[in-house]
């Protein structure tokens, strides 16, 4: 099973093959978690998101058409949407409680303080971006996807993705210099 491509596994799972489905989940669980974490930055929320995405996959896989859209496109789309929902709820909680999640997640780190500051500050700057720019930046820079792939995930033209990434980079540079 591990030698099969996502396309083949998706086809088999759509036909009810449990082993194929298990292989898909095992293969992509970590990636979903990491994408969700980069968005919402709370480990427990990212774990919940990974679980929700995989449960949704279990419900939808039988109707999934592997010829229509790449499996990874669907996965990224669902993960980003769930991560955004979790992030919105998290921000509401934080605004009420008056603290930032970023500093919490780095408290137990053993990395040098300077590195922590740069990383923490970077993530906080990324959080300030509008959602559309944050989406494309995390997918392109964080996940290494092409502009074309990201365009399919977020549902816009490739040139729009390029524009949003360009804008996001400019803002980060400007904020970083303040």
């Amino acid at each position, binding site marked *: 099973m591990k030698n099969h491509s996502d396309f083949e596994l998706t086809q088999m*799972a759509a036909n*009810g093959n*449990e082993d194929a*489905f*298990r292989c898909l*989940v*095992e293969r992509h*669980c*970590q990636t979903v*978690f*990491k994408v969700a*974490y*980069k968005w919402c930055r709370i*480990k427990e929320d990212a*774990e919940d998101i*990974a*679980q929700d995405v*995989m*449960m949704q*996959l*279990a*419900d939808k*896989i*039988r109707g999934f058409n592997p010829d229509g859209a790449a499996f990874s496109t669907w996965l990224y789309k669902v993960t980003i949407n769930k991560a955004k929902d979790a992030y919105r709820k998290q921000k509401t909680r934080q605004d009420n409680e008056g603290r930032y999640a970023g500093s919490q*997640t*780095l408290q137990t*780190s053993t*990395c040098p303080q300077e*590195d*922590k500051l*740069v*990383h923490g500050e*970077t*993530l906080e700057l*990324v959080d300030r971006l509008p959602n559309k720019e944050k989406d494309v*930046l*995390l997918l*392109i*820079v*964080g996940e290494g996807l*092409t*502009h*074309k792939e990201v365009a399919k995930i977020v549902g*816009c*033209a*490739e*040139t*729009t*993705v*390029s*524009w949003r990434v*360009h804008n996001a*980079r*400019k803002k*980060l*540079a*400007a904020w*970083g210099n303040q």
Partner: protein
Amino acid sequence: MGKSVKDDDLKKMLDHPDIPELDDATRDRIVTMAVNRFRETGQRSEAAPKRPMSQWLIPALKPAMAAAACLVLIVMVRNEFTVSPDDRTAAESAQMMDSYNVAVFQEYQTLFQNELRAVVARDGEVDVMLGGQDDGQINPVVFVHLEMDGEPVFITAYSGQSIETVIAGKNVTLEILTTSDSDVVLVSDNFMVDDGVLHGAEGIYADAHVLEMNL
């Protein structure tokens, strides 16, 4: 235009070792729950009683066929009396691209050395064509073709270069970018490309559309 952050620097900052991994116990729990759900969903769909096709197919077909007949009639009438401006523009633009492909490429091979042409544009409809050639070099040549009332004017620059020019009487700074797929994108503080359409600040452009071309 303002400097932007390089991807390599940003990637190093985003991929910090402090980003946690999904631990084995949590991963196994998620996999088990998902597989159980997959199994239950399969059992539910097998258990659901299936109606014989004749009981639902024929009643469903009747309204669908009536709707299809109406739609065909509407489309026939509409096509008889209207021509989509988008179709006409796309056809004209395709012809324009064909005739310009060879001529422009040859012309701009000689302009490979940072030559710029100032663009003076008049108000009105514009077609903006973005094209570029990735010849494996770091900075592919990019050209922008503006056609105003059938008269072409050109801008040529290297990727990553900023160009100061005048469009519709306004000073405009254009920045040339390349995407990860070697397509090129033209961006500016004064206008932007969004979903294949050029949007102008302060109403500089009207009904512009972008054609992407890779040589």
